[in-house]
Structures are given as structure tokens and as C-alpha cells.
């Protein structure tokens, strides 16, 4: 009877997530279950385990297993100027507001391997905001953060990235920002000289700076609503009055307990503005 098996499996899954939390302090216990279950099922099969319990034994006792598993527990998919309309709206609608500030702090939460950060750095340079801006790029995946700090991407991805950049209203050629060689595009390191890369979890860590713009895209979709509420609470506390929050193309504050602390600034592009007086 498949339902009985499913129930045992659920117990084992919960125990696995608990074990990971107790030993490594990565807290996936309140992630949206459907997706995490799928990905851990893949990990279980990949590592030749019969059950989540066996996988739990491995992750607790074999060195290096946690790093491997983190590749399954987090989803690392990104693009430069992903959803160009988002970046175009920032250029056209948000930048004029940002220009009124003498100094800016921008937080890219869940930056993955850096594509989103470089998009912001390029956009801010093109719009003349770079010199006054400090970027925080945070993630829980150390491997992704390392890649973000290197800024090296496969050359074959540049066609898409170039097109995205153009559609975002890019004022220069993307190739001005990287050098190509040996099948790789290496982004100019001056783009990240004003960036602090840091290991930070939206689930277990606290606010670390006051910011004018938080961009957190395609991270909250992996959280339950409760956890989304926590993360959005962090953004609200970090943002100054009238600060901006940008989400992924299919993410919304509509179902959030924090919804009325923000106004919809650009509805289709999922740009929100924190209300004054909060």
C-alpha cells in the first residue's frame, strides 16, 4: 500500500533534515517540502542509498557528504539580467529615486554564483551609481559564493547574457565587462571591488546592515509561507523607509503577512517599496 510507504518516508525525511540541522546548522526543516523531497530523492538514488535513513547515516558520518548534499538541497540556477524587464524597470523607475541618495547599500540575498550581482554592478556602473554603492552578496552555499567571487562563466552562456543585457536597456556592450579565453568569460574584477560576499542564511541569521535596495529572487519559492514571512521580515527591517524590494518574476508579497508594509511599486516586475513610517 503506497500510502504507508509514503508515511515512513516522510518520517525519515524529517529526521534527515533534523540531523542536518543538529550537526551542520543548515536549517532546511521549513523549506517547501515538495521540491526538497524530490531533490533529496535524487540524492538518495545518486548515492546508492535505499532510504533517507541511510542517507542520514552517510551525511552524519562521512566527511565531505554535507557539501555534496548542499548541491541537492539548494538550487543553483541563474542568469545575467535574468528577466530583463526586471532590470529595465529598475533602470527606468528605481534609479531616479536611488540617485537622490548620497550613498547606497544594496543587498543581493541568495546571490548563487554571482550572475545577479554582476547584473546589478553593471547596471549601477552604466547608470552612474557605482561609486556611491556598496553591495552585499549573500548565500548559504559556499561553493556558489566562491564562484560568485571569481566571476567566471562558460563562454557559451554569453549569447543569452548579452541578449538579456540588451533587453534590460544596457547602455554598452556586455563584452566590455569581460575577457574571453579558453571557453570562459571572466568578468572584470573592478565590478566587484565594492562588494562584500558573505555566508548568510535568511532562515537562521539576522539583519546585518541598513539597505536601500534588497533583491531576493527565486529564493523564496523554496520556502514555506512561514519561512517566507521570516525572510521578508528581515528585508523590511534592513530597508530604510521607502527602500525597494525586488522579487523573482513569479514571486509575490500578496500572500505574505508583511504585504501591507510595502506598496507595489512596479507590479509586473515584482518591485515593492517599503512604506514610510514603518
Amino acid at each position: 500500500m503506497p500510502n504507508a510507504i509514503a508515511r515512513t518516508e516522510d518520517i525519515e525525511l524529517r529526521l534527515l533534515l533534523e540531523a542536518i540541522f543538529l550537526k551542520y546548522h543548515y536549517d532546511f526543516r521549513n523549506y517547501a517540502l515538495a521540491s526538497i523531497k524530490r531533490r533529496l530523492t535524487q540524492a538518495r538514488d545518486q548515492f546508492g542509498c535505499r532510504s533517507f535513513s541511510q542517507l542520514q547515516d552517510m551525511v552524519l558520518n562521512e566527511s565531505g557528504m554535507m557539501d555534496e548534499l548542499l548541491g541537492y538541497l539548494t538550487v543553483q540556477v541563474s542568469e545575467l539580467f535574468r528577466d530583463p524587464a526586471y532590470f529595465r524597470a529598475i533602470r527606468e523607475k528605481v534609479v531616479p529615486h536611488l540617485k537622490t541618495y548620497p550613498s547606497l547599500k544594496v543587498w543581493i540575498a541568495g546571490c548563487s554564483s554571482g550572475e545577479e550581482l554582476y547584473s546589478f554592478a553593471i547596471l549601477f556602473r552604466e547608470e552612474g551609481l557605482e561609486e556611491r554603492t556598496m553591495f552585499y552578496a549573500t548565500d548559504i552555499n559556499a561553493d556558489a559564493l566562491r564562484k560568485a567571487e571569481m566571476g567566471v562563466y562558460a563562454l557559451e552562456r554569453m549569447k543569452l547574457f548579452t541578449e538579456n543585457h540588451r533587453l534590460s536597456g544596457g547602455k554598452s556592450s556586455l563584452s566590455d565587462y569581460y575577457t574571453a579565453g579558453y571557453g570562459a568569460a571572466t568578468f572584470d574584477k573592478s565590478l566587484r571591488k565594492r562588494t562584500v560576499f558573505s555566508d548568510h542564511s535568511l532562515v537562521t541569521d539576522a539583519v546585518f546592515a541598513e539597505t536601500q535596495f534588497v533583491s531576493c529572487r527565486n529564493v523564496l519559492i523554496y520556502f514555506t509561507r512561514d519561512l517566507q514571512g521570516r525572510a521578508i521580515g528581515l528585508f523590511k527591517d534592513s530597508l530604510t523607509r521607502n527602500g525597494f524590494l525586488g522579487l523573482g518574476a513569479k514571486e509575490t508579497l500578496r500572500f505574505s503577512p508583511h504585504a501591507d508594509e510595502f506598496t507595489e511599486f512596479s507590479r509586473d516586475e515584482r518591485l515593492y517599496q517599503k512604506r514610510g513610517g514603518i
Partner: protein
Amino acid sequence: MPEPAHKPYRAVVIGASAGGLKALSAILPHLPADYPLPIMVVIHVPPHRRSLIAPLFEEKSQVRVVEAEDKTPIEGGCVFFAPPDYHLLVERSFELSLSSEAPVLFSRPSIDVLFETAADAYGDGLIGVILTGANNDGAAGLKAVMAYGGKGLIQTPATAFSRAMPEAAIEACPSALILDLDDILLELKNAA
């Protein structure tokens, strides 16, 4: 423990690919405004960012038709389309999740991902429908639906624009019902 003979169905999932728009047009616009079950749909479309499919069906249907947003609560009488380039998943809490994890069988959204997670959430209260398509996405998903005790409906390959998907589903699920679109519509109406 003996199970009651007729469990009421609680949700429908539909998967389609090549030729799917036309096949869906024979179903969704014909459901009554008070159709009580929620319907989740994955149709493979080229990954353009904006999808016009939900508005298209909203226009000509009596049930509500929307493109799913993350953590949308599932409601009866509403059709939820997976947004282009995101997987659509059903949570146990009967909310919809999106994910940009890797394509499955070259597909994102993936029919298998929707069907498997919906089966996990709805158990034997689920109806899975596989329509026309040129690949084998959905076969494993429908198998999961039926393994949990749900009902499987497959479009008759001969009447499908592209027969590969229904044929793959039939091979994976020999006990599914193989029906023309009219009869699939009838089954969906009768299940409610």
C-alpha cells in the same frame, strides 16, 4: 482496513505538449462555472517569459483560469497553469510552489514533477490526464498518480495531434482509461 468504494476526487492534473492548446480547448471551456475541483495544468511552450495561455483560456472559459504564482492556495473551480520556465509543484498544504531546478526530460515545466507532487499531496483523490505530445514526459507522473490510487486518463493516440506522449503513458500505465477528448471531458464532469 477496508477502503470505501467511491472516494470523491479532490483535484485534477493535466499534462500536454505538441498540439496541447487545441486539445485543452476541447476541455477547459466546457467545464461549468461551478466546477468544484481545482485543475493544475502543465503544457510545454517555448520559454518566452510572458505566457498568454492563461489569459487566452480565461477569456473563453467559465471556470477561473490563472497562471500560478508561488504559494498560491489551491482553490476548487480554478485552473492553474504552470508559468513558462518554472516547475509547478503541489504542496501537502495544498498550496502551489514553483521551482527553477533543472529541466526533467528536457522539460521545465515538467509534467512528471507536477503529477508526482500532486499524487503525494492528494493520494487517491487525484485524476491525472495525459493529452497529445511529442515526448514521453508525463508517463512516470501518471504512473505515480495511479500508484497512489488515483485515476489515469489518456487521450486516444489515434486522435492526438502527436501520439508519442499518450503512447508512452499507456505503456507505463496499462490500466489507465484511454479516451477521446469528449469522454475525458465527461469523466472530469462526472468526477466532480
